[in-house]
């Protein structure tokens, strides 16, 4: 999977933890880098932070969905409200998690997205 978040410490620790659980996770620290990376290797799931400088999370989501409509995207957000999550879902996201996340929850969501929930 591809993890996209501008906080490097966060994504690198998370990626390593996923590795330890047998999940291949690559990281990108901004939207453009993420899109570029996707041209090289296509992940099965993208985990995307919505609040990023430069190409914002929403824009990246749009582009990913434009290029790969079937690709599941899970959003990471700092918002706690249902409203924001729902808004994310209407834009095509396949799930969302509130930061700071529970790694087990992430894995569950990922499995669910992959099995076509």
């Amino acid at each position: 999977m591809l993890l996209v978040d501008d906080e490097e410490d966060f994504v690198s620790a998370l990626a390593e933890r996923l590795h330890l659980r047998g999940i291949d996770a690559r990281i990108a620290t901004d939207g453009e880098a993420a899109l570029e990376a996707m041209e090289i290797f296509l992940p099965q799931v993208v985990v995307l932070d919505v609040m990023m400088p430069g190409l914002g999370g929403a824009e990246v989501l749009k582009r990913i969905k434009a290029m790969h409509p079937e690709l599941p995207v899970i959003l990471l957000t700092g918002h706690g409200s249902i409203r924001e999550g729902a808004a994310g879902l209407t834009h095509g996201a396949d799930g969302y998690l509130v930061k700071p996340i529970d790694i087990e929850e992430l894995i569950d969501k990922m499995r669910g997205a992959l099995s076509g929930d």
Partner: protein
Amino acid sequence: MSSSILWVRVHPVTASRKNGIKALVNFSKVWKWLTSGFLLHYDKIGAADRYPYLRRNIILLMLAVTLIPLTFMAVINSHQYHSSLKTEIINPLYTLANKTKHSFELYLEERLSTVRFIASAYAYTELSDEKTLNRILRVMKTELGGFVDLGLIDNQAHMVSYAGPYELLGKTYSQQSWYHEARLRGTYISDVFMGYRKFPHIAIAVQQFTKEDLGWILRATIDTGKFESLIAAMGLDPASDAFLVNREGIFQTSSKYYGKVLERCPFSAPLGNYGTSVVEATDPQGREMLLVFARLAQHDFSLVIVTPRSVILRSWYTLKSEMFFIYFISVGLIVLVTLKLSGNLVRNIREADEKRELAFRELEHTQKLSSIGRLAAGVAHEINNPLAIINEEAGLMKDLVGYGADFPQKEKFLGLINTILKSVDRCKTITHRLLGFARRMEVQFEPLCLNDVIQEVLGFLEKEALYKNVQIRLALAEDLPQISSDRGQLHQVFLNVLTNAIASIEASGFIVITTWQEDDQTQGVSIQDNGCGMSEETLRHIFEPFFTTKHGYGTGLGLPITYGIISKLGGDIKVRSKPGEGTTFTIFVPTKPKTG
């Protein structure tokens, strides 16, 4: 003029106690209503209608309170004055009439007693002698005056002796009613008659008896010239007239305006009056006249004084017109002042209300802000607790990893622990900023000089600038006037901008700070650096909260907070930048606090 009487309906107090109590209760209710000032309470009325309503009520109240008593007083006063005026004019006339009446009475009485005296003092035989009669007449004329002739009439009603200018000797009076009246009464005074030679005369007759008990009459005629002089002696004004009338209303003296002697007087005497009375009547020319009738005691003559009402009332008319004038001017003034004053008053009240409402909202607003600020500050403090614990635990981890046996992941672990510690620091900064921001929600104004504030901030940054080899050049306006602003907030603003400027300089460079008076209301400060500059894209976002080009450190809060402070102070902030060349921040600070 008849006086008008105000009739006030008075509710009869019934004997029943119940009714009495009811009446009392009602009365107190009405009293309460009247004194509640209901007219001036406008709480229950909408804002738009409130002030016209208030103004209208104030005007009505003021006009009522001033005009009603004024009118009342004016009416009463004029009424009083009118009546007292009448009395004042009438009283002298009364007195005059009475006095003159007395003079007339006296005159007639004197003449009568003289004739009576003569008739008593002299015997019939003596008086029959014409020479004696003549002598007596002569004496009467010289001593007393007014006598025209003297005649002796025997009991056969023949004039047997005569002294005087007329040819009356031998005349018989048996047909004359006066003769019989004289014989009956003993004395007689006639009305005025036209004597021979057409002069008005009055005859006085006195009866006497001879030794033989035969009745004889001594008759004297007097002329009425004295009457005229008595009337003239009254000294009436030219417009007035006075004369004598008899019971039938025939002039006994000539009236100035109303007829000659023995003509009929157009005014009729009041009936049944035996004293002096005043009557109002209209004369033949239609003028309103005041008549004083004074009836003589012993004879049916009345002295009449006729005065035009206008003369009496002349001063009343002057007063009346003066009073009207004053009254209407007063009313006009009162109305004018009331309207103007109420308008001003209500306008002032409205402004005061609006100001108070505004101040209230400001206060509420401030309260709100400070409440929010306090809440947020509370939470921020609260968050420090878990952070502190994380800090401690991470420190402990560090020790455990450090002191433990060399294990393979040591480096990694230390790296992760450091990440944690750095994160805690980051949080601390954020909460500090938030706390500072919350504390600063209220702006406190004081007089200060921008140049001084900048110097103070430079004091904080001296070391850092020196360390980074940044030259600070000052182009501060001399004699920059003092302004009223918040020192603490301005510190924060300049601190933020200068920190950014210093941070944007890589190795060495300079910062130019300029201050100037932009216009009457504003002063300007520009902070220019020759650092790395910003792209157009960056420029667009720099005031957004949490936008930062420094990843990992820098909260992205500095400039948004700066922007917030400046806008709260009522100023403005502008940026110009070119990548590779540098950035200039221009800040405009108002000289006086701007409310709202």
